[in-house]
Each structure stands twice: as C-alpha cells, then as structure tokens.
C-alpha cells in the first residue's frame, strides 16, 4: 500500500499507516488497504491505485484537508479528464502544511496529490508506485526503480514526470525534501534533456532524494519554519538553473554541470544549516539567478524566456532615453519604429554632411595639420576649459567642437532634420564657449587665407603626419 510504504520509508520502522490515528475520517478504502503489507504485488497496488484515483476536484474543494468528501473512488475513466485539469496542483497540494482544518492529515495529502500529477504517464501501477516512492523521498534508489520498471522505459517519461512535477504554479514546496527533490529533478530534467545522460538523473535524484528523506524524517512541525527559507532556496535554485541553462546556451557546456551542482549543493547546505537566512546567489558564479514569480509557470523554457524578455525591455527603456521624443511612446513596436527612423535619419545626416564636406573641402586649400596646431595654440591660451588630452599625443589637440558647437547651435535648424535639434546637450555649452567663436573663426580665416601656411609647430605637424597615416586601411 502506498501510504504505508511512504510511511515506512519515512519513519523507518512503522508499517502501519499514520493516518489511522487521526481523528478525521479517512476514506474507508484507505483504511481497508492500509493494512496491506508493503509489497510489490501488482494486483494489490492496482486495486489501491484505483481507489486512490479519486476525483481531483474533490480534493480541490476540500482544500486539501483530507478526503473527507469521500467521493474518491470515482470511476477510473473519469479521473483522466479531471487529472489534466488538476495537474497543476499536483505538487501544490503539499503546500498547505498543516492542511487546513486538519492536524494529522498530512500523510493522506501527501499520497493524494500523487495520482493527479502522475496522470500524464502510463498509468502503470507499478510505475506509479515507484514514482510515488521516489517522489516521497524514499531512501530507495531511483536507479533501481528505473532499472526494474520496464514500462518506465526511456528516461523521457521520467523527464516528463519530473517536468510535470515541476510545473506547479506554487513554488513554495513543503519541506526540505520537496525542495531538494524538485530542484534536483528540475536540474536533472534540464540536464537530461540537454545531455541525455541517465546517470546524472539517477545520481542527482538519488542524492536529493536521500537528503530529502533524512530531513523530512525530522518531523513536520518545523516545516513551516523551514519552508520559507527553502522556498527562497528553491526559487534561487530554480532560477539559477534557468539562468544557467540560458547562460549555458551562451557559454560552454562543461561548466554547466558544476555550476548547476553548486547552487544545488548550496541549497542543501543551507537547508541543513537551517539557520542561515536567504542564501543569495553566489556572486562568484557570475550567472543570473532568476526567481520564479508567484503564479507563473516555472518551466525552464518559460523562465528563460521571461529573462530574455526582461532584458529586452530593459534595453528598450535605455534606448528610449537615447532617442529624443520617445518618452510618450509606449509599446515595443512603435518604439522600435521610432528607433529605426532615428537611426536612418542619423545615417542620412552623415551622408549629407559628408557631401557638404566634399564640396567645401577643395575650395579651401588649408593645411589641416596647421589648422589644428594653430587652433590648439590659440585656444589653449584663450580658455581654461580645454579638455585634457592624453599625454601620449604629442600634438596639442584643441577642443574644436566646443567652439564650433556655439555656431552650430545657431545654424542648427537649417538643413538638419529635426531629431538632431539643439537641445540635446547644447545648453551647457553656451556659457563657456562664448568667446571662442570669434577666435576660432579668426584662426580658420587666417589659415584659410594664407593657403599653405607653414605651421608654427613643425614638430607637431611632423608628429601628426607620422602617426599611422593609413586611415583608410584597417588596423586592428
């Protein structure tokens, strides 16, 4: 009998069913079959299983308070339909601990939630029994269950099973064991789906199951206290696994195992430590630790998807600040349109300005190096707000644009399309560059008129000329 098996495994010696002692009235079927000894006999289990496949809606209505409603022995044909509906609550049942209105009804609850979650798999009673045993953190090895049970067959179904268990909306799983199991299972699910390695499945679940088993045996009264911590831990573990899965898609594949193990082991340590607060994600990992939010699917794919979406929206916000005039616009599509238009307009501006430069340039036969040097000398003396330049630049580099900016702002609107309108950062320039404009224009005209005026600082010009002059060539 399932319940008795779990009980036995948890307590280690008791073969009687716990709930017999409870005051509440468990369904008579349970009582009857509770006395069966632990065995692998299929017929007995079959019988038990069918009786266990009560109407899940009943459980929901009852509020997990046990099978007081008694309509549990619904026909096995009907439970299939109900099972799918209540699949989500498969693992959520043990959330309520202690169950509402009940005191010692944990055990039936524990066993009751199993059937719904297992509906999606071949309803082989042997498999179910093994899975149930496994899920309740039995000390029995998962590998032996896998090996024994041929209908279980491929690890896909196991993976499915694990996945099914982990798709519950409520992440606050009761107890250490559940956390470890689910975390471990999720981890193994991810791993098995990606690497197809059965050994990992067995050893990880084994470890988590074993650990869960021992901690769960400490008693359930302290579960509530532990639960919050473990919830955080499970969340972090799940999150870390999600992010690690995603991160691993980016990075190498070898690190994944170690990193996935480390959060899980951290979780175990924390759980056993029991006194530490929320063990936040290890910063040394360098991975994103995603927390599954309440009411959201904890599917590995959806979590990664959510992380990705959040990243994109964060970048969108950043872009919104960049592109002028996008504050009122909301929605990704329109925003992207705006951004695209802005980029196009910027590129067009560059093209237009280069055209202008092309027409302007040949008209004045000025020495660029000289221009720069002269400007440098003039401006340097003239202003104190010269931008400091790197020491390795032998040539004095003038903050040309500052002076130009003044003039640019005044003439800004003529040819340039609106996105580049003045107020970008022109405001703060005004006060400091008032005197430059005239100086700069003088300098330019001097050079302009003088033609190839030899620069004052020949050395500077020579140095500049000796700089890697192959601008058109690409250098790394």
């Amino acid at each position: 009998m399932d319940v008795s098996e779990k009980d036995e495994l948890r307590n280690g010696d008791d073969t009687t069913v716990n709930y017999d002692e409870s005051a509440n009235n468990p369904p008579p079927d349970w009582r009857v079959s509770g006395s069966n000894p632990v065995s692998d006999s299929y017929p007995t289990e079959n019988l038990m299983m069918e009786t266990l496949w009560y109407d899940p809606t009943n459980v929901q209505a009852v509020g997990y308070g046990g099978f007081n409603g008694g309509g549990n022995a619904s026909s096995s044909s009907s439970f299939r339909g109900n099972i799918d509906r209540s699949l989500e609550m498969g693992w959520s049942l043990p959330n309520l601990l202690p169950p509402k209105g009940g005191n010692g009804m944990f055990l039936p609850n524990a066993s009751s939630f199993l059937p719904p979650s297992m509906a999606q798999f071949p309803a082989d009673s042997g498999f179910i029994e093994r899975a149930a045993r496994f899920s309740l953190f039995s000390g029995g090895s998962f590998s032996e269950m896998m090996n024994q049970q041929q209908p279980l067959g491929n690890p896909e179904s196991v993976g499915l099973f694990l996945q099914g268990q982990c798709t519950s909306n409520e992440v606050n799983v009761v107890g250490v064991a559940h956390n470890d199991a689910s975390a471990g299972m999720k981890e193994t699910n991810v791993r098995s789906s990606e690497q197809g390695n059965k050994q990992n499945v067995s050893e990880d679940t084994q470890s988590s199951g074993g650990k869960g088993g021992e901690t769960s045996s400490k008693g359930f009264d302290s579960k509530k206290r532990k639960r919050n911590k473990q919830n955080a831990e499970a969340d972090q573990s799940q999150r870390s696994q999600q992010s690690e899965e995603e991160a691993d898609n980016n990075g190498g594949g070898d690190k994944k195992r170690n990193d996935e193990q480390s959060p899980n082991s951290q979780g175990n340590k924390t759980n056993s430590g029991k006194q530490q607060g929320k063990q936040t994600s290890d910063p040394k990992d360098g991975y994103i630790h995603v927390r599954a939010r309440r009411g959201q699917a904890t599917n590995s794919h959806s979590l990664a998807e959510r992380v990705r979406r959040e990243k994109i929206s964060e970048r969108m916000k950043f872009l919104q600040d960049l592109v002028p005039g996008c504050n009122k616009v909301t929605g990704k599509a329109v925003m992207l349109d705006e951004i695209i238009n802005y980029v196009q307009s910027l590129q067009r501006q560059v093209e237009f300005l280069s055209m202008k430069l092309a027409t302007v340039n040949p008209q004045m036969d000025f020495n660029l190096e000289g221009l720069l040097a002269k400007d440098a000398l003039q401006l340097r003396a003239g202003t104190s707000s010269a931008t400091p330049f790197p020491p390795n630049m032998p040539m004095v580099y003038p903050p040309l644009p500052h002076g130009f900016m003044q003039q640019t702002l005044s003439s800004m609107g003529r040819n340039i399309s609106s996105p580049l309108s003045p107020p970008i950062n022109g405001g703060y320039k005004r006060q400091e560059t008032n005197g430059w404009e005239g100086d700069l224009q003088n300098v330019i005209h001097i050079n302009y008129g003088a033609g190839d005026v030899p620069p004052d600082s020949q050395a500077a010009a020579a140095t500049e000329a000796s700089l890697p002059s192959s601008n058109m060539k690409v250098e790394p």
Partner: protein
Amino acid sequence: MASADKPINTDVPEKDVFTLHFLQSLSNLRRQNTFNSPEKTNDRVKKIKKAAYVSMARAAGGTNRLWSRALLRRAAKENSKVVRFPRRKKRVTCLRRRRSNRRDPVEEEEAERLRNLVPGGGGMETSKLMEETAHYIKCLSMQVKVMQCLVDGLAPK
C-alpha cells in the same frame, strides 16, 4: 553571460576623439593626389563618407563593439585589405539559431529592420542588438555633431 545587474555600458568617447580620428582620415584623404579634382565629386563624397564611418568606428571603441568591428571589416573588404581582429568567442550565431522559434513575430520584424541598419546586426540576438543599437546611436550622433561643426567652421562665410 554576465549577471543582469551589470548596467548596460554604452560609454562613448568624447567628441575630441571623434574629431581627431575624422580629421586624420580627412587629411589622409587630402594627401591623395586625385582627391581635389573638381570632377568626381561623387567619388569624393563616397570616400569622405566611408572615412567618416571608419573613423567613427575606430574612435568609438575599435574592436570592442560588434558594430564597429563589422564596419571595419566591411571597409576592409572593400579595400581588399586583410583585417586582423583579436580572437573572441564566436557564439552569436549559434545562439540565434537556437532561439529562433520563440520570438514575437512583430518584434522580430522590427528587429530585422534594425539589423539591416546597424552594421553587424545580422548575427546578434535581439537583446544584444538593442545594446549595440544604443551605442551605435550615440556614436552616430556624436559623429554628426563633429561633422556639422567642421562643416560650419570650414564653410566659407
């Protein structure tokens, strides 16, 4: 991938750097003998434009940014020059393939247009594309400012 807490780094060098690079390229252009001939304005225009982009790419961080790298590579290909970049993990393409089925169609259409605009955007995932776009926009606007200043400063009065 780094943690999500790290802020997006889109620092752009000062205008001076841009101006320096641009003027260098311009002066280099001028040294070419056939540059100042009155005909062939279009060629000149194209060269100047290319110089502008290349100098911008170089000024904006060289090979640290995907778009600048793509730009430089494209320019080098036109010049049939050999480009040597520091080795980096080439993981963008596989990332894209894997995620291709889980994207919002509307967003992807826009992202496609953006990819065509931003150099080097073809092999990037959407979030990375956004980051590159932000940096690219900053650099572009900086370059436009520099060029505008130059044109205005050098224009005959």
